[in-house]
């Protein structure tokens, strides 16, 4: 186990190895990841009913703390919480507290005073979800909805669910992640998940300026030439490219990026004929991906969104379950002490 994994393991699991926070995939084993996928599978059925609710979080309050705007991720978390029958509080902290100079610690104290049971956190800084998990009162579950460049574990897990639905297994799969790996929390979590779940090969395809230092240490191989990287692929995951990258001398132009690393029909033809195409969204048509590919038969981009709700339901119910179990355990130890 790496030092990172050990640190994360300690923070997000109960003593019995149940989830109590969901901050990163570091330190989570294959059995637990599979459990998340299986639980999500069972929730997919809920979304197909006319009454799309289960009572697992009834009477619980879930606060969505978005320090960075994101319509899609927030909506799917909100829907997931509501389908679990929770009360949901949406807070765009970007525009309220922090602009008045309130510190994150103070914001948290205020929210805890409102008796929330779970915080779903999106923040621009790596490690924000860890910080919050370490600062909140015991009993409140923290779900990381993306922190800086560090992790976006629910996105990675919904991607894994989508892959499993289409491929049945991870064994023997060749997967590539293409584009801005350096700035991507999604890529870091995906590489980790694919390694843990047993994918045969994880390739990252990007120019040198968009790769973190010693990226191979994360568990992948590097390919600068996309045509070579596409060979025999079963899954290709495209990443979103931010416009700012042109200004920081990381890329010369969108046009050159698309020519070299955009997913066109020609490049897709180099992969395995049943290769699926994924993208965490929102997509930049003509920058990362050709429209015909995004809307084509190999694209599973929209089922990623649907799966997002099921994965978030799974993670939220599991983390709340871990918190409840831990509380009961503490209570019974206390009783034991008294008798």
């Amino acid at each position, binding site marked *: 186990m790496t030092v990172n994994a050990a640190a994360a393991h300690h923070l997000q699991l109960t003593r019995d190895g149940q989830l109590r926070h969901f901050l990163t995939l570091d330190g989570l084993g294959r059995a637990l990841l599979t459990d998340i996928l299986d639980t999500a599978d069972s929730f997919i059925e809920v979304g197909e009913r006319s009454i799309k609710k289960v009572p697992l979080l009834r009477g619980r309050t879930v606060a969505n703390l978005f320090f960075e705007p994101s319509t899609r991720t927030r909506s799917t978390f909100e829907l997931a919480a509501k389908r679990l029958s929770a009360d949901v509080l949406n807070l765009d902290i970007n525009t309220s507290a922090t602009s008045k100079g309130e510190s994150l610690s103070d914001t948290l104290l205020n929210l805890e005073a409102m008796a929330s049971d779970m915080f779903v956190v999106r923040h621009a800084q790596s490690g924000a979800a860890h910080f919050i998990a370490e600062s909140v009162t015991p009993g409140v579950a923290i779900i990381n909805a993306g922190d800086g460049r560090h992790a976006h574990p629910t996105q990675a897990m919904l991607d894994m669910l989508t892959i499993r639905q289409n491929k049945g297994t991870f064994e023997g799969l060749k997967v590539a992640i293409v584009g801005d790996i350096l700035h991507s929390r999604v890529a870091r979590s995906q590489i980790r998940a694919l390694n843990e779940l047993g994918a045969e090969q994880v390739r990252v395809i990007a120019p040198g300026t968009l790769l973190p230092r010693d990226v191979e*240490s994360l568990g992948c191989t590097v390919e600068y030439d996309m045509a070579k990287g596409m060979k025999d692929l079963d899954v290709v995951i495209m990443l979103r490219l931010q416009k700012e990258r042109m200004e920081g001398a990381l890329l010369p132009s969108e046009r050159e990026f698309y020519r070299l690393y955009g997913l066109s029909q020609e490049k897709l033809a180099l992969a395995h004929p049943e290769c699926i195409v994924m993208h965490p969204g929102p997509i930049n048509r003509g920058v990362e991906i050709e429209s015909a590919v995004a809307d084509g038969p190999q694209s599973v981009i929209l089922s990623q969104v649907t799966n997002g709700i099921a994965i978030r339901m799974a993670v939220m119910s599991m983390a709340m379950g871990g918190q409840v179990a831990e509380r009961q355990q503490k209570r019974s130890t206390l009783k034991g002490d008294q008798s």
Partner: protein
Amino acid sequence: MSGHQVFSGSSLKITGGRLLDGRGKDESNRALLIRNSRIAATGEAAEKADADQVFDARGCIIAPGFVDLYCNLREPGNGQKGNMRTEARAAARGGFTTVCESPETSPVNDSRAVTHLIREGAEAGSPVRVLPIGALTRGLEGEMLSDMGGLTAAGCIAVGNGSRSVRSARVLRRCMAYAQTFGLTVMLRPENQSLAADGYAHDGLVASRLGLLGIPEVAETASVMEMLLLAEETGVRLHLSQLSCGRSVEMVADARRRGVAVTADVAMHQLIFTEDALAGFDSRFHLRPPLRSEADRKALVAGVREGVIDAIVSQHLPHESAAKQAPLPDTAPGLSSIESVLSLGLELVHRDELSLSELIRSLTTGPASVIGRNASAGQDDKADLCVFDPATRWTPDSQSLISAGKHAPVLGQPLRGVVRLTLVDGQEAWASH
């Protein structure tokens, strides 16, 4: 149990200790007689002499007082982070008798008035000697020369730019040439600003995995190379402060072989911790320069052992607790370290990475010679001494630390080594027993 006056008479005899003088002398059961702020007698003569008080130093090591080439006492201007009373006392507890204060006070130490303010503050509130480092550039902004003539006259022992870099090589070259006029040592922390950019962690394995913004090694090494070449050309005495890369040590050794007047230091925490300390996003280890790889750590330790690195510094930088309570990238860099420098050093000795005499040298004679001072414990020397018990354990916690900064590297962990007595000018600056 600690801090109250133990020694108040006019003469003191220290008996039974092992004396290490930082120059290779190592004598067991050595007595010292201190009278009128000096070491009046040693050995048998001291043993036989009468004294008002006797300090039993059996099991302890007696060394010259430690000299810190870089720390922040936070006075004037940063009262919420610390002050002379708390931080200089913390230094005395750490065994330091002389500390050089960074010019990064508020206002910055770029005028005689501020230098005087620091010296007066030290006179009134510090049990240890405080030597101000003057600003190299006005306001530390890296654009205009500071009044180095005035700063020298007011008592600054060197000039430096604190934690800020001088972006322009042209300005840096002129600063060096001007400092050379006054025979001033220029103390610089090498960091190329445009390469370090917004980074806050070593650009290595841990940063890649955690998605932290990296400061590449070359941000330091490119700056070291530039500084060495400029120093060689201007002939100024250059002191490279707070090195973090193994490669920098090689470059310093190389320059010395060519006859460049360069010295160097490293912060104690760089010799103990690595990038791994950030694995749990622990904001205490948000440092500048960042903690680097294990290979760098080993090379820095070797640099100390071989004397390429002259001194170990505390790089003490206390903060109020709110400054460290935020997601890692939003926290202020720095550690509250001056009380645990010796203990971390003894850990290195315990691990056989440094010898005890190499440790003492790097805390006493090494740093003293960088600023043209003397650190010694012989007959007739001024009695700036540190007596410590290397075996006793203590566990720092936020209550027991004297520093206003509670973000120490080793809170809650048992450390070896307790300073029993710190004497400055023969006067007690710290005592615990």
